[in-house]
């Protein structure tokens, strides 16, 4: 059966999103990105806008486990997928995810604008490939930008997270 979402200009339709295991009903215009909905309506500020064209990684979220740029994903099309933002990584008791803890332990940030993106790229990789090589980790993170230049600490944190998850 074909689904047609009738969305005349200015008219918003309810969209049900699955974010961090919770169901959220929100309204989004056809051009709204998931990033805009996360920040403006769901008030989840972990995903940030950097470049707006999928190149910097600041807006990274996991969609069905895969890291994607939420600045390029229409909110309407996110409705079929399980979305995880950095706010959804910690355990219910507030305990940090091993990747988050490794970033803290390595001081792998200065301003932290890019951190949620790097954390989710790392978490997505280690979930899929817990034995990822150092080279694979570097390659996975090569599409994320840190303008403070903390790359060395970030890669070290990701490697530590892998070693702890493996142990």
């Amino acid at each position, binding site marked *: 059966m074909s689904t047609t979402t009738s969305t005349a200009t200015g008219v918003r339709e309810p969209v049900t999103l699955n974010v961090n295991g919770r169901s959220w009903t929100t309204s989004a215009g056809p051009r709204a990105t998931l990033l805009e909905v996360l920040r403006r309506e769901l008030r989840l500020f972990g995903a940030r806008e950097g470049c707006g064209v999928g*190149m910097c990684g600041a807006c990274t979220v996991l969609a069905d486990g895969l890291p994607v740029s939420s600045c390029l994903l229409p909110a309407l099309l996110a409705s079929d997928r399980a979305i995880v933002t950095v706010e959804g990584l910690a355990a219910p008791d507030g305990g940090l995810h091993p990747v988050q803890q490794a970033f803290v332990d390595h001081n792998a940030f200065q301003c932290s604008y890019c951190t949620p993106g790097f954390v989710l790229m790392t978490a997505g990789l280690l979930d899929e490939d817990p034995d990822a090589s150092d080279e694979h980790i570097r390659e996975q993170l090569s599409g994320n930008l840190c303008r403070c230049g903390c790359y060395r600490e970030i890669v070290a944190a990701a490697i530590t997270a892998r070693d702890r998850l493996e142990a």
Partner: protein
Amino acid sequence: MRVHRPESVGEVLALLAEHGDDAKLFAGGTAMMILLRSRLLAVQQLVCLDRVGELRSIDAAADAVHIGATATLREIADSPIVRERLPLLAGTASLVANHRVRAVATMGGNLAEADYASDPPPVLIGYGARARLRSLRGERTVAVADLITSFYETCILPDELLVDVEVPVAPPGVGAVYLKYTTRSVEDRPCVGVAAFAGATTAGTRVVVGAVAARPVALDIDERDPDALGSAYADAISPISDLRGSAAYRRRAVKALVARAVRRAETGETAAVRV
């Protein structure tokens, strides 16, 4: 703008037949979202392909692989079928942009966008790939070499859907190399991309150069010497100037990279390499 989410190819074709040029197809969105949000593209009917499962398959045929239009670059890079039978295409797909883009960007979207600075088209042309276009009027196949007609232009008609790409398997023993030359950062689009398939033509090595002109360039010349081939390509192309390199710079890069790609392919090596 109306957003449609059809669930079969038949429904997509009906929407395209009804709305013609007012309808635009939306697959991974990595190109379309940028165009839509910058208002470079005004769309009345947005036809999303994410629920059309039948477009996403990667299937092995006798001497070819059929890659569905909405197979993602990540799926192509990771597919055991593509890795075994079209190793250069798998390797090239893994060099495009970054992990997030590859997780959603599609084969059909890559070709339909026809960005001049793109890695897969010269490699697909080197393989002799053909795109299958379907409409309610029928079906036709077009060589990928003819599909892209100019900067961001293809011969796909408004009521046609690119269904899949048929990629012939290169004969065993043929070395195939793609050199992706980037001038800014690792995830950037290529400044020059050179695909070389050793032994693929009667004259020797088939060379296709991408990212230097409106469409990928393949010369029909009887020349075997790698350096002479490099010079021939450098002389024949009218390279563009953009932020990744001036025309003069590209001409010199093409000369060196064509020679290098040909030499590597003729050793029997098969690899897609960022240089």
